[in-house]
């Protein structure tokens, strides 16, 4: 546990000092959403209709932006080899790095989402559901993305490849995340959607660090 926290703390202080990563992610998130009124027109009811979907898609793309760097810098400066050789199980190392990634990208996205909900004219009844759905969904995005980030280490085309690998796997989270918000706004029960989102998170929590560790082992070989 001490090792786990040491890694989380290190990655957080790296993120803070290298600076701006979180800020950039949030800026991208806001900017991507702001493009939509220009694309589909500013009618409030049109925007309200697509708000949940747009916010989720933008969050998903923003979370993916920073994924490429998750293991890349450690891979390039030799830290990854030493992390692999630490007495900690590699799965724990991967989980710690993913937790740090979520704290620096997923969490700021959640904090920024109500602002976007206002801009996109989302029904006010949907705000808490939006935040809750993002809180349940974004950790899964970081977990699944972490596997992709580990797989592309040392490949010829990192970022584009990563999106090709990871985006199809994000579809279930997207579907249930959006539907949870839409259902709540429409006055329906959204419990099923939240249960599925939670289920996906519970399944990803052990599986993704395991797959990510396997990917790192073959990358440092």
């Amino acid at each position, binding site marked *: 546990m001490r090792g786990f926290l*040491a*890694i989380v703390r290190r990655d957080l202080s790296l993120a803070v*000092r290298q600076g701006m990563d979180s800020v950039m992610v949030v800026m991208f998130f806001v900017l991507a959403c702001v493009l939509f009124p220009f694309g589909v027109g500013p009618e409030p009811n049109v925007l309200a209709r697509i708000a949940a979907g747009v916010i989720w898609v933008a969050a998903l793309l923003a979370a993916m932006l920073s994924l490429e760097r998750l293991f890349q810098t450690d891979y390039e400066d030799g830290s990854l*080899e030493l992390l*692999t050789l*630490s*007495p*900690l199980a590699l799965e724990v190392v991967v989980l710690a790095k993913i937790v740090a990634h979520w704290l620096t990208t997923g969490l700021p996205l959640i904090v920024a989402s109500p602002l976007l909900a206002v801009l996109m004219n989302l029904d006010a009844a949907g705000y808490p559901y939006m935040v809750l759905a993002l809180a349940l969904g974004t950790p899964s995005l970081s977990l699944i993305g972490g596997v992709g980030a580990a797989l592309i280490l040392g490949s010829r085309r990192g970022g584009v490849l990563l999106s090709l690998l990871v985006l199809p796997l994000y579809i279930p989270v997207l579907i249930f995340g959006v539907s949870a918000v839409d259902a709540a706004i429409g006055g329906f029960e959204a419990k099923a959607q939240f249960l599925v989102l939670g289920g996906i998170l519970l399944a990803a929590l052990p599986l993704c660090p395991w797959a990510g560790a396997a990917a790192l082992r073959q990358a440092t*070989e």
Partner: protein
Amino acid sequence: MTIFAGEGLVCIRGERTVFAGLDFALGPGGALVLVGPNGSGKSSLLRLMAGLLRPAAGALTWGGAAVAEDPEGHNGRLHYVGHLDAVKPVLSVTENLLFWARLRGQGAAAPDRVAAALATLGIGHLADLPGRFLSAGQKRRVNLARILAAPADLWLLDEPTTALDRASIAVLEGAIAAHRAGGGRVVVSTHADIALDGAAALDLADFTLRPEQVFAGIAGTGAEAEP
């Protein structure tokens, strides 16, 4: 007396057999110097000993128990110094080293140990400097301070003298001697001279296959399959 040993090790990189049938044994306080031309597999052997690579055949044992059975336990008793120094540019030297020391279970004593390690390598004055201001030689010494800051039985050093001047090499030799005097063991690959008393030399060239042997299997495949 626990022996770190390898038996019948075969290493294949890509589709090339780097070495085959390699045996070694290393007792407490022992030192092994890997020599051989470029590409003979010195780095590969060290990575194999560290567990970063899996041998294609053969086994590594520690005190008779297979290393592959308990990789985390093996990690806990070794330090590896590779070609890269793993110094984060935005963290200070002390922060860099504290992280690695804490990762290896050093708790409250970690700051003292890190300071002592920096002093031993003569870079105590760099303690608060961010990594990005360090020269190659200083980074290498920070990396070597890392292995002093948390004790481990086995040191695997891949060309540790790279970027070091004569004086620093002497310090390293002293550190290795002290480590061995305390029962530690060390494996070093090197081009430069490094003085280690009573070290056994392992010439990788002895285990490198001739090109005919390396590719015999593959070429034979073709000859046999196509009548």
